[in-house]
């Protein structure tokens, strides 16, 4: 069942655990999905973004909101779910079968059907442009050139990689100036410093809470590096970490998983990628965090390696790491920093 997950504050962790559920298939772009799953409360600044992602899901579509306090009202026709992953699966299946029965019951657009700029009928061929590069042909202007150190002054793409991009931790917005595939400038936005709802699904006991949060990060990181099957295994392991379970079996499973991850060569790929002052390259951070997960499970410690990076410290760390790197390396760097999605501001755990 193709589901696109848009995770707001406090919901990102649980969404990554859904990767381990065989019935759901988390897809990378709203275009491939039938059901939009909104978890956690979406901050005010990202409301337009969640509405646009909702509209980008092709018809016939349905919306399921999971533990979403604020947005439930603004998502008309959404089935509201509180409960664990199984409840989400049943809700998604019910919504989907309702769609099958009556495709016309698809959710209607939330944003007005208005072109970004008026363009019809303007310009020589009515496509809204003037001359070679001017005007807003078909509603948008064309990119303008920017200075590039290697002397080729070519066009710059100014993009905002949104809060619900599948590869970035939820709620993180990256303003990017791209020349070709290399980032000229990259700034993280801090505007979503709103609600810091602590993640209720984490076990009360701190060390297993840290281990589960770490495994959730690992599931998303493996997905971004192209290893979906291992990500599903990590997510399934994360959902089994609750305070009461026997830790020896879990730490053995975690150890086996870490060995498999090392055998895929992902650490070799991340060598020398995203060197950040004070914490080495991405491979070092991965290795450190993977060992910390195993030891948090086995001997009930609270390793600080599992402490997710706060958004404002991440922004200063990345200030000089991102410009000049390719988009692939930039995303791998951000993912390896484990920027706390729902943990804006206050130090609570995801």
């Amino acid at each position, binding site marked *: 069942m193709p589901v696109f997950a848009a995770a707001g504050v406090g919901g990102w962790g649980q969404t990554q655990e859904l990767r381990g559920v065989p019935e759901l298939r988390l897809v990378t772009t709203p275009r491939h999905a039938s059901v939009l799953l909104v978890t956690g409360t979406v901050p005010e600044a990202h409301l337009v973004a969640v509405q646009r992602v909702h509209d*980008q899901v092709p018809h016939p579509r349905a919306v399921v909101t999971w533990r979403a306090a604020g947005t439930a009202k603004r998502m008309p026709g959404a089935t509201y779910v509180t409960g664990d992953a199984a409840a989400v699966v049943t809700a998604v299946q019910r919504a989907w079968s309702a769609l099958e029965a009556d495709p016309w019951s698809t959710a209607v657009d939330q944003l007005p059907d208005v072109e*970004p700029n008026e363009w019809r009928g303007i310009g020589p061929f009515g496509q809204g442009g003037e001359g070679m590069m001017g005007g807003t042909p078909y509603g948008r202007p064309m990119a303008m050139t920017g200075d590039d150190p*290697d002397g080729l002054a070519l066009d710059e793409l100014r993009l905002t990689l949104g809060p619900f991009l599948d590869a970035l931790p939820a709620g993180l917005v990256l303003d990017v100036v791209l020349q070709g595939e290399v980032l000229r400038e990259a700034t993280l936005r801090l505007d979503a410093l709103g609600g810091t709802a602590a993640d209720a699904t984490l076990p009360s006991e701190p060390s297993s809470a840290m281990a589960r949060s770490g495994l959730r990060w690992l599931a998303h990181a493996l997905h971004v590096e192209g290893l979906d099957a291992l990500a599903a295994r990590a997510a399934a392991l994360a959902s089994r970490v609750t305070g009461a379970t026997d830790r020896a079996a879990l730490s053995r499973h975690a150890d086996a998983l870490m060995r498999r991850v090392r055998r895929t060569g992902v650490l070799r790929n991340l060598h020398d990628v995203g060197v950040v002052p004070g914490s080495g390259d991405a491979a070092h951070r991965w290795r450190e965090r993977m060992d910390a997960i195993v030891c948090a499970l086995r001997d009930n410690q609270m390793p600080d390696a599992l402490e997710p990076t706060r958004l404002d410290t991440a922004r200063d760390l990345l200030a000089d790491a991102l410009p000049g790197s390719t988009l692939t390396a930039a995303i791998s760097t951000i993912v390896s920093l484990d920027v706390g999605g729902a943990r804006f501001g206050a130090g609570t755990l995801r």
Partner: protein
Amino acid sequence: MLGAFLSGLTVTCAAALFTAGCVILARRSTRYPSTAPQRVPALGGFEPETHAWSRFHVRYYPMALLFIAFEMEMMFMYPWAVVFVEEGVTALVEMGMFLAILAVGVVYGWREGAFRWQ
């Protein structure tokens, strides 16, 4: 001999037309026209300021030029492969020399950093 090419061409065109037909039929007969918010490129939530089509700065342009020169060599190698067994050692030595010359070009390109993202 031309019959073989004809059946190859027929198979290609059949597969291509079948796929194109399915896609065009689906795009024409859909009951939901794409509205403006749906048409915004998928960037995770916000909309881009400009068109994506722009003068894209290709970062591997020296490698592309090097590739074109190297590709020319393929033209010579196919006929050489056919008569290789017949000609014996002279063919091996000759192609060895030819490959060595071109390998010098690749080594020079590697040393000058042509394969790194500019």
